[in-house]
């Protein structure tokens, strides 16, 4: 919609570009150039390089044996069950964590919105998980779930205190997801709180007068009006969760089949020096993020301009 409107007015604008607006254009280009250059240097350029390297059978330990193999690396990756298992893990983690973050985050946001005292305390508390290093949060939860030194087994009623959370796929995944949810829910809550603050108070009062119950106000007034905020928060968090790496590295190091797709890529490139197949995985990872982003935008009709206008 907006793009068509813009293209139609553009020619007229350009025809009459005054000296002032041309000077403004030049100044703007100079101002944004360093940022653009830097961002592209570290992303676009390496990405192109990855595209190139992914066409080779290339191992750092034997750099002279580099041979062109075309799309062979992609075929290898895509036909490998490991790739699909890790993708499934990643999607699983993304869906579960974002769901819980959304529900818990919304509850937190509601509480914070109502709060008239101790706001500073809550703000400080909520920012600590956000600010804390993911690796540290990973450690904290790994030790908490540990059956030799942790407290979780002791605190859960009827739990066998010797239960090894990291000895089995489902429990290990659960531990990883708990650490992820703990760390990122506050961020979600803050975004939702900002959205909540934008629902006009008089609209809620009008709904009250119209006879809406608390539940109806939530579903019919508050949530529809927070749609943009919720969708942007979900998009951000989902893409972030799709890149999950730090917690897994620290907590299980991929044991019990808990690898994520990022972890697989990392292992190929950095630990095994398989730059060829690793690059192919990098490209696939990038593409899958695009697919996820596109999917969410399409599925929920996220209005990105709402986010961008910020």
């Amino acid at each position: 919609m907006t793009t068509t409107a813009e293209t139609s007015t553009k020619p007229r604008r350009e025809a009459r570009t005054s000296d002032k607006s041309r000077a403004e254009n030049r100044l703007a280009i100079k101002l944004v150039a360093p940022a653009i250059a830097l961002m592209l240097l570290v992303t676009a350029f390496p990405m192109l390089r990855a595209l190139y390297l992914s066409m080779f059978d290339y191992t750092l330990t034997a750099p002279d044996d580099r041979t062109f193999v075309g799309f062979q690396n992609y075929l290898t990756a895509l036909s490998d069950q490991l790739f699909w298992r890790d993708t499934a893990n990643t999607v699983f983690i993304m869906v579960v964590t974002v769901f819980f973050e959304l529900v818990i985050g919304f509850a937190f946001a509601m509480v914070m919105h109502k709060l008239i005292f101790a706001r500073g305390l809550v703000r400080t508390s909520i920012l600590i998980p956000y600010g804390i290093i993911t690796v540290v949060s990973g450690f904290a939860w790994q030790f908490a779930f540990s059956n030799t030194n942790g407290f979780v087994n002791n605190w859960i009623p009827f739990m066998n205190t010797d239960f090894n959370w990291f000895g089995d796929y489902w429990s290990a995944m659960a531990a990883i997801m708990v650490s992820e949810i703990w760390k990122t829910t506050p961020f979600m809550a803050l975004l939702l709180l900002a959205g909540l603050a934008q629902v006009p108070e008089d609209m809620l009062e009008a709904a009250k007068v119209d006879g809406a119950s608390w539940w109806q106000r939530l579903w019919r007034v508050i949530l529809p009006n927070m749609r943009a905020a919720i969708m942007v928060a979900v998009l951000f968090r989902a893409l972030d969760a799709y890149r999950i790496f730090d917690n897994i590295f620290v907590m299980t190091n991929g044991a019990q089949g808990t690898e994520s797709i990022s972890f697989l890529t990392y292992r190929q490139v950095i630990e095994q020096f398989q730059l060829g197949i690793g690059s192919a995985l990098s490209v696939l990872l990038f593409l899958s993020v695009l697919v996820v982003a596109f999917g969410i935008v399409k599925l929920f009709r996220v209005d990105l301009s709402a986010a961008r206008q910020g």
Partner: protein
Amino acid sequence: MRNDTLSRIGTALGLALIVIWCLLPVAWIVSLSFKSQEAVTNGSPGFFPSGGGGAGWQNYVDVVKDDQFRQAIFNSIGICLIATALSVVIATLTAYAVARLEFKGKKFVLTTALVIAMFPVVSLVGPLFDMWRTFGIYDTWAGLIIPYMSFTLPLAIWTLSAFFREIPWEMEQAAQVDGATAWQAFRRVIVPLAAPGVFTAAILTFFFAWNDFVFGISLTSTERARPIPAALSFFVGDDPFNRPASLLAAGAVVATVPIVLLVLFFQRKIVAGLTAGAVKG
């Protein structure tokens, strides 16, 4: 009336829940850092150190005495501060252009920032690893500062653009009518108004850089440039099969102190910055 008290009790309960949720794991890692290493090796389940398993400040003394750890802290502080400073300067220029000027390619700038903010960093470590070795900046501060800058730029640009849009730019014109040159208007009116936003962006950028792990483990190989999260994860101690949990916990607490301090002093600004960049009608 009854409804009112009920909802007040509910809010108070919710408040308690949030605080517990947020601080319990932090309290736990602090508590763990006071367990003695023998107790941890022999197994000491439970939240608090018990049965003479307390270590007092010993773990902290050990951590601070550890050269690797000290170097990692030094690396992290240095790298993050430099990356933050550079990133904020560059982002300020960009955000000014985005918020204030009409130019072709504004959409391109914002879209690039958006895409980079969502970029899977792991997919870059391979090629960057390769490139940095070619350029000779693998395992150096510069090798981390550059990617930190690029990946904090989107956040900084967004946050700053949001702040800059809020500045009453009419002020600049008012100052010019009052007899100020363009430079005076900028220096005496705009800078004081923009400073809080820039400062907030700097804090968020610092958080981001301080938290990085992927680049930290991929683009370094020695303690020369290894930042604190990477150092913590590689810290195995004497027995590789039984990590010195309490020592690690002490290290983690030390690494968390700067974050906690920033949060304590600037919580209001941080919240404003986080939400300004992300949501707004």
